[in-house]
């Protein structure tokens, strides 16, 4: 298919799905841009997988509309899946096939894929494709499903909890592959309940809560809003009161010669206060999106979500 203007990879307008009285997703307006990694975040049960199932036309929306690469998700689903790689959160591989046979089957249904891409992915993910799927660990099954999603070099990847079951080294490799896909100008829609998984690769994140999208924001902006932590060790015990009044400081904990401070905004004032004493050691912890995530959650629950900017 050729398009005069490159179509938006994912667009939903008022997408809504109710099941037997349960509002799984409600008025979802979402736009994912070409060439970005979009993190789709929310706890289990927030509606992430329901959204993906609607995008792939496994389920019918109750209301609203969605398009992928400019194609209607209900009417042009088969054409959409030609250009999309999908890794479900919940799936079973044919137990009596090997990984290689499974991938060959899916490749045949796609009219063939580049064998070198499969071999390269298998090597990078250290996938054992010669064994029967029934004999594979969950992590190794995950690798087969990941290769199936990436092997046709799709314009859009929809990955639902892709890291679950992978060991940390393989998670890093997967992140590297996702970054390469983005560098290639392709798009990744990455659904996860884990912020740490998403923040390493995503450009923007959308946070879903009880079926509603409560914020869409750039990851770096969210990080700026984050509450950070500093652990300091002093030559002599210090008083917590010396730090409580420092601008930006949220909480202070003193334990012997040590001090743990959480703060937001610039760190200058806090450092000046610390340098009044003899500092032995200093340890900064990376901004944790989990904190923002919870802040948004609490805010939305109280009806006062922070300004999404």
């Amino acid at each position, binding site marked *: 298919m050729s398009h005069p203007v490159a179509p938006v990879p994912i667009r939903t307008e008022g997408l809504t799905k109710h099941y037997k009285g349960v509002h799984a997703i409600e008025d979802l307006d979402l736009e994912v841009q070409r060439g970005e990694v979009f993190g789709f975040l929310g706890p289990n049960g927030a509606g992430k997988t329901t959204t993906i199932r609607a995008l792939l036309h*496994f*389920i*019918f929306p109750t209301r609203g509309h969605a398009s992928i690469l400019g194609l209607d998700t209900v009417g042009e689903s088969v*054409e959409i*899946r030609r250009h999309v790689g999908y890794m479900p959160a919940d799936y079973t591989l044919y137990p009596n096939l090997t990984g290689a046979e499974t991938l*060959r089957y899916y490749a*045949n249904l*796609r009219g063939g894929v580049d064998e070198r891409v499969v071999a390269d992915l298998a090597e990078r993910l250290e996938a054992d494709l010669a064994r029967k799927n029934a004999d594979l660990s969950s992590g190794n099954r995950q690798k087969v499903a990941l290769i*199936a999603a990436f092997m046709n070099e799709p314009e859009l990847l929809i990955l639902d909890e892709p890291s679950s079951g992978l060991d940390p080294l393989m998670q890093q490799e997967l992140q590297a592959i996702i970054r390469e896909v983005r560098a290639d100008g392709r798009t990744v829609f990455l659904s996860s309940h884990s912020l740490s998984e998403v923040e390493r690769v995503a450009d923007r994140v959308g946070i879903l809560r009880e079926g509603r999208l409560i914020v869409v924001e750039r990851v770096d902006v969210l990080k700026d809003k984050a509450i950070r932590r500093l652990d300091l060790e002093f030559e002599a015990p210090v008083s917590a009161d010396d730090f409580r009044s420092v601008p930006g400081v949220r909480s202070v904990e003193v334990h012997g010669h040590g001090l743990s401070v959480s703060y937001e905004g610039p760190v200058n004032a806090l450092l000046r206060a610390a340098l009044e004493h003899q500092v032995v050691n200093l340890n900064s912890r990376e901004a944790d999106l989990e904190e923002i995530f919870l802040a948004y959650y609490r805010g939305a629950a109280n009806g006062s979500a922070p300004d999404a900017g």
Partner: protein
Amino acid sequence: MLASVFTKSARDALLWTVAAMAVLLVMAGVAMPMYAEFGEGYLGLMEEMPQWLRVVYGESMGSVAGLVGMAMFTLVSPLVLLVYAIAMGTGAAVGEEEDGTLALLLANPISRGRVLLAKAAVVFIGILVIVVAVWLGIGAVAGLVGIDMGGQDTFAASVHLAALALLFGALALAVSAWTGSSALGLGVAGITAVLSYVVRTWLPIVEDLADLARFSPWHLYAGADALQRGIDPLLLAIALAAAAALFGASFVGLRRRDLRV
């Protein structure tokens, strides 16, 4: 063998198809030599059967060939074929959905209707293969043990048998496709088959109820009495038309519901 959904499904169905075929051929291979050996004695016993049993088993047993036809086509073959058709029909509609393999299958550019068509085609062909094997098997065993099947139209009976299996296979397919539940597909089709057999077979014992038995789906098979009278075009057409309608309905059902993947 993994070129398409059809070839993969055919490969997956091979074991059950061969098993159903083997059961029926073994039945023929064991029962028919016994009838050849002791058939005349059986017939003597049958002469003394009460009238109601004659109604149930039919009047066609005046010869050893009639005994063979009755043994193979009254219950054993329909039973095995319907178990096959109902189980495979249900599996074609919701097997991969319930197994959890459908999510990755439908990640590929293939519509759910195409998947159903490929899988239903495998069941269709499986039924035909089994019926043809049984028909040829009966003829071969009869030749080997010296039974003259001349008076029995086993071909016509086999055609009606295939239509019966297609009908109940399509019922299982349709119920499963609409509901997404293998339990419902197996249950509805299985219970319908048993009830329709019981109604068609036992109601005629009571003279006043005999006419009602014609409304049982089983009548489309048993009412033809194809072994004696050959193919009944009307009953065969009704059975095939009903199977085709249920087959069509299964597509409508599958295409309009939410999948559990």
